């Protein structure tokens, strides 16, 4: 009987359950996608070659688990808020507490199991889709990636079912312990938050100070080393929290004084925001941090990828050296735009390659200004006397030999060079071009032709193009992970926020119903919903972007232009975040805005 009643309750609120299930399914799907990468050792190993990467993933995984816990806690409170009134009523009518507890437990677990399973299926689909997009659109090369990966499935199931078991126990305890009357009236409680201006001012100052400390810590990562990250995390978290709680209240109070408040439903919206600040401060803080992490991951990943051509320029004075250019190769070279070419003669005797000094006087071979990391790739030409001294130790020069053996390089005066007997004569052509990325297809063909004729004994790399290819492969992995991390975090944080907002809908139904009764236009009510939710979405978004702008300072020692891709990633991010905002408002409007007339 009780089971029947409880099922009827679910049926009545089917829409709400749909929201709950959808949210949980998306969360499970995202977690699966992430676990898929993080638990795939082969993938991490083969795509990064950086020992840090697996740590990054473990760190990301821990974060994601924490978010998932928060997320499920919110989802569970949404569930509980839907059900406690019903169950309170059953108890009032004499149902045994233990029986109710049992029902709640089963219901919670069932929802968990269903959403986990569907979520994993969706996650597999999403992994396929996203990886396809990344591979095809961005031309990334990634190895050992499987959309369907068993360890990830097991991890996801363990975490989710475990968490739902806990939630079930929690719900059981909560319902059994709370007095029946309180269960029936739990929705009526209202919190008033009145604050003293002095406290508020202190909060703002302390918040800004803490944020500043965090930002400085990130910028000074070279001096602070590893300490910078935890320091920044703690100070930024606290700072955001204080700032949110003080600034929102302050801003709302200020706005309430203005004419703005008296127009339309503005006062109502402001009051709504004010009333929710306390319960929202925590989630807004979390969301802003996650937003920053996600956006940061994408920016950094994309930034690294984009710097491959730059790195190519900074590691070599030329893009490619072509030995004994033949007709085919000549054709290809002439297709290249914006190139400098230089050709030198070589004579090989035994194991030594001789160069005509005079040719280097007439057409000096440029050298890198500096061989330090992160140099800007600028070049210099040396007078011949100096050039001869350094060239023999310079990779760019020694690498010009035909690649079929261990050869030494030597300079010879013009006459000596001409008089070399028993020598085979060769040429080497150096091409330097500005835009490697755009012409990489031609360069690829050139390289293939060269490798066929002069198979290199080792993967000894000469020329920027080789470097470009190596870093491109390396950074593809990073970018892929950056995107993956970024999207996983974004999806999670936005879902968290969505749930938190949706779980407030119950109380708002009454409010909007009242507004409808006294003749508020639907358009105005929609505006109110959008305004309120926009505030809740925009605030952490803005702080998150600020966090990222400062946070990228940490990558200055590692990257040429940490900010190069920031604009784009912010744009992409805002679009996706905006989609979440749109979905949340749509669902919310459906939940709370009543029909104008009862049976319309």
């Amino acid at each position: 009987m009780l089971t029947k009643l409880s099922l009827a309750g679910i049926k009545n609120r089917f829409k709400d359950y749909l929201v709950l299930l959808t949210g949980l399914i998306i969360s499970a799907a995202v977690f699966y996608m992430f676990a898929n990468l993080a638990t795939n050792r082969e993938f991490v190993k083969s795509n990064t070659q950086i020992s840090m990467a697996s740590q990054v993933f473990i760190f990301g995984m821990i974060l994601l688990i924490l978010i998932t816990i928060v997320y499920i806690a919110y989802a569970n409170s949404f569930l509980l808020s839907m059900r406690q009134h019903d169950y309170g009523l059953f108890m009032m009518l004499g149902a045994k507490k233990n029986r109710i507890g049992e029902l709640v437990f089963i219901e919670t677990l069932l929802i968990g199991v269903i959403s986990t399973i569907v979520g994993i299926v969706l996650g597999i689909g999403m992994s396929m889709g996203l990886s396809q997009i990344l591979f095809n659109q961005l031309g990334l090369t990634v190895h050992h990636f499987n959309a369907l990966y068993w360890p990830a499935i097991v991890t996801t199931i363990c975490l989710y079912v475990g968490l739902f078991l806990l939630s079930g126990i929690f719900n059981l305890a909560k319902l059994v312990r709370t007095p029946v009357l309180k269960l029936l009236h739990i929705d009526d409680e209202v919190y008033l938050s009145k604050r003293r201006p002095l406290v508020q001012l202190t909060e703002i100052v302390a918040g800004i100070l803490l944020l500043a400390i965090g930002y400085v810590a990130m910028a000074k990562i070279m001096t602070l080393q590893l300490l910078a990250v935890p320091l920044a995390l703690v100070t930024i978290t606290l700072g955001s929290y204080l700032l949110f709680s003080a600034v929102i209240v302050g801003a709302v109070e200020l706005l309430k004084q203005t004419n703005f408040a008296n127009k339309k439903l503005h006062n109502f919206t402001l009051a709504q925001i004010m009333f929710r600040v306390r319960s929202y401060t925590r989630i807004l803080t979390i969301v802003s941090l996650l937003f920053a992490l996600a956006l940061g991951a994408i920016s950094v990943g994309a930034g690294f990828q984009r710097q491959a051509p730059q790195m190519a320029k900074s590691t070599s004075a030329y893009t490619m050296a072509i030995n004994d250019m033949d007709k085919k190769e000549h054709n290809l070279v002439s297709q290249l735009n914006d190139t400098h070419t230089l050709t030198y003669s070589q004579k090989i005797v035994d194991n030594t390659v001789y160069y005509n000094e005079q040719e280097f006087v007439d057409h000096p071979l440029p050298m890198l200004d500096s061989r330090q990391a992160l140099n800007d790739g600028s070049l210099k030409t040396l007078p011949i006397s100096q050039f001869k001294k350094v060239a023999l130790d310079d990779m760019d020069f020694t690498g010009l030999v035909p690649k079929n053996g261990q050869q030494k390089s030597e300079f010879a005066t013009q006459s000596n060079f001409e008089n070399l007997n028993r020598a085979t004569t060769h040429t080497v052509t150096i091409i330097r071009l500005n835009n490697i990325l755009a012409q990489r297809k031609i360069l690829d063909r050139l390289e293939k032709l060269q490798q066929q004729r002069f198979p290199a004994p080792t993967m000894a790399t000469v020329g920027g193009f080789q470097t470009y290819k190596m870093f491109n492969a390396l950074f593809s992995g990073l970018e892929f992970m950056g995107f993956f991390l970024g999207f996983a975090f974004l999806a999670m944080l936005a879902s968290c926020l969505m749930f938190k907002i949706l779980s407030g809908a119950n109380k708002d139904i009454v409010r909007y119903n009242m507004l409808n009764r006294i003749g508020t236009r639907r358009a105005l009510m929609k505006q109110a919903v959008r305004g309120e939710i926009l505030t809740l979405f925009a605030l952490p978004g803005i702080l998150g972007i600020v966090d990222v702008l400062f946070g990228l300072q940490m990558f200055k020692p590692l990257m040429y232009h940490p900010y190069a891709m920031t604009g784009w990633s912010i744009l992409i991010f805002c679009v996706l975040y905006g989609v979440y905002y749109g979905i949340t408002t749509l669902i919310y409007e459906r939940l709370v805005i009543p029909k104008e007339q009862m049976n319309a």
Partner: protein
Amino acid sequence: MQKTPVVSVSGLHKIYGRKNERQYEALKGIDFTIDEGEFVGIMGASGSGKTTLLNLLSTLDTPTSGSVEVNGQDITGFKGKALSDFRSEEIGFIFQDFNLLESLTAKENIALPLSLQGVKKAEISKAVKEVATTLSIENLLSKYPTELSGGQKQRVAAARAIVHRPAIIMGDEPTGALDSKSARDLLDLMTDINKNQHVSVLLVTHDPFSASFCDRILFIQDGQIGQELKKADNNRQTFYQEILNQLGTFEQ
């Protein structure tokens, strides 16, 4: 002088339930008018159709057939903006459960209908102060509903119902949740508003004491108006007695 009717209802039917479902006819042809400045009560047993009638008059629900005119306009066809604008401009509601927004102060609650109409801040302040003085709730204005007693809440709700000078105030058992002292205060207040500000009032109640404050009472029975009782020159006590007698005859 012939008074113009504020509300005129004719041939009003309401059938609940869709065509192929189980149907129930809650109103079976109702005709009446309310004149400007009149205080009309609607009484009837539980389930007789009082709330249904009020919902139709206030456009919260649509009739199956028949017409409702307020200030000469047929309101049964209203949709969308016209509907909400009608509600916010012509009608003042007082509900049994107060229906105040607990996130707004009393003052902000009262100001709401004016904000909806786009009235200027200064004018809103003035109007709110005025009603607050009339209802002697000036000292409650900055409080939130949770800080108010039931009676105080209902006063605030009444202030919100009249602040925009509607054509008619409607109340569905507004005294239902109040103790007798607060109920009486509210009824006095409504009489006062009715007499001094010439706002028509339509009060739904099943409590004879509340009904005795009205000028005229319509008795609904099974979806039809059965009896009509006028106070005329009687004082309230005699009218109360008359109502009790009338209710007595129903019971036999």
